[in-house]
């Protein structure tokens, strides 16, 4: 039996110490002399207790594997980020991808680009010319 020398013994007189020692001896003997039937029941109880602990094992498994799984997932995400996106460069944006079809037509037609770039265009002249063309078409239909 482990000695209980933790301050209490210093405060006991000789008679109390002797009494304590005798009581400990008797109690230890009574533990050793337990009937075989009782010991057997205690062993069965112990096995039942151990068998009732699967939830502890599952809990233990989960507790170990959840952080490990999270770590592996984070590592995989990092690897994907570093391999797919080149380091130190911003992603290249293709301007054609977001362009409207009209813009593409203008770019394809070099004359049209030239027209849009010419700031000295006489828009009044073109409006007049279109009007004249319409009028000429209408008079020819009447004749």
């Amino acid at each position, binding site marked *: 039996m482990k000695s209980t020398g*933790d301050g*209490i013994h210093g405060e006991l007189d000789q008679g109390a110490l002797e*009494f304590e020692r005798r009581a400990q001896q*008797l109690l230890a*003997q009574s*533990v050793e002399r337990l009937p075989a039937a009782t010991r057997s029941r205690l062993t069965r*109880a112990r096995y039942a207790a151990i068998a009732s*602990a699967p939830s*502890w094992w599952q809990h233990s*498994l989960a507790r170990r594997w959840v952080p490990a799984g999270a770590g592996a997932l984070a590592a995989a995400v990092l690897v994907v980020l570093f391999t797919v996106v080149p380091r130190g460069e911003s992603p290249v944006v293709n301007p054609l991808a977001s362009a409207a079809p009209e813009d593409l037509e203008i770019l394809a037609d070099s004359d049209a680009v030239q027209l849009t770039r010419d700031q000295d265009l006489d828009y009044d002249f073109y409006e007049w010319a279109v009007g004249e063309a319409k009028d000429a078409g209408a008079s020819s239909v009447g004749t």
Partner: protein
Amino acid sequence: MLAFANLGSQTSDLLPAGIAQLRESTQDGARALETFLAEVERKAFRIAQIALRHEADALDVVQDAMMQLAHRYASRPSEEWRPLFYRILENRIRDMQRRRMVRQRVMSFLPWRGEDQEEANDPIDQAADTGPTPPSQIESDQMMQLLEQALGQLPGRQRQAFLLRSIEGLDVAETAAAMKCSQGSVKTHYFRALQALRSKLGDFSA
């Protein structure tokens, strides 16, 4: 993508080793728990038996305490098991004592009191051990009986402090943790228990 592929192969290399290590540590944990329970079960039974004065009830509370420890606290560090186990045991003993009090009150109103008397009068339990017994053992048994009676008359906390220290050999700090009280209270309970036992049993020498 090559790095990703490498990571995959490394992970597959690591997994079996990890699972084996985990299985091993789980088995170690179960073994440690079994060793601990085997070490404390008889002492716990005697503590419960002295408190309850009933073998079957004592077995029940010890089994409950073992199951609760295995089920709820097995994942705690093994150094914490002993005070935890004895705290659970004491709670179970108290529950059993309360249940008995209620049962006794209920039974006192009933005209018949079948089960308990049948249990108490079980001829197998009552049969005397006919094997030879040395005189020193008879004397020890008689003294143990006296001690047990005196312990049974102590207030619960005094009995608990005395038994945890005398049977299990817990120190003041461990006893305080098991009893969920201060170390000063443990000392007070212990001294009072010792004083009460000495006044009842005298010198109690062999």
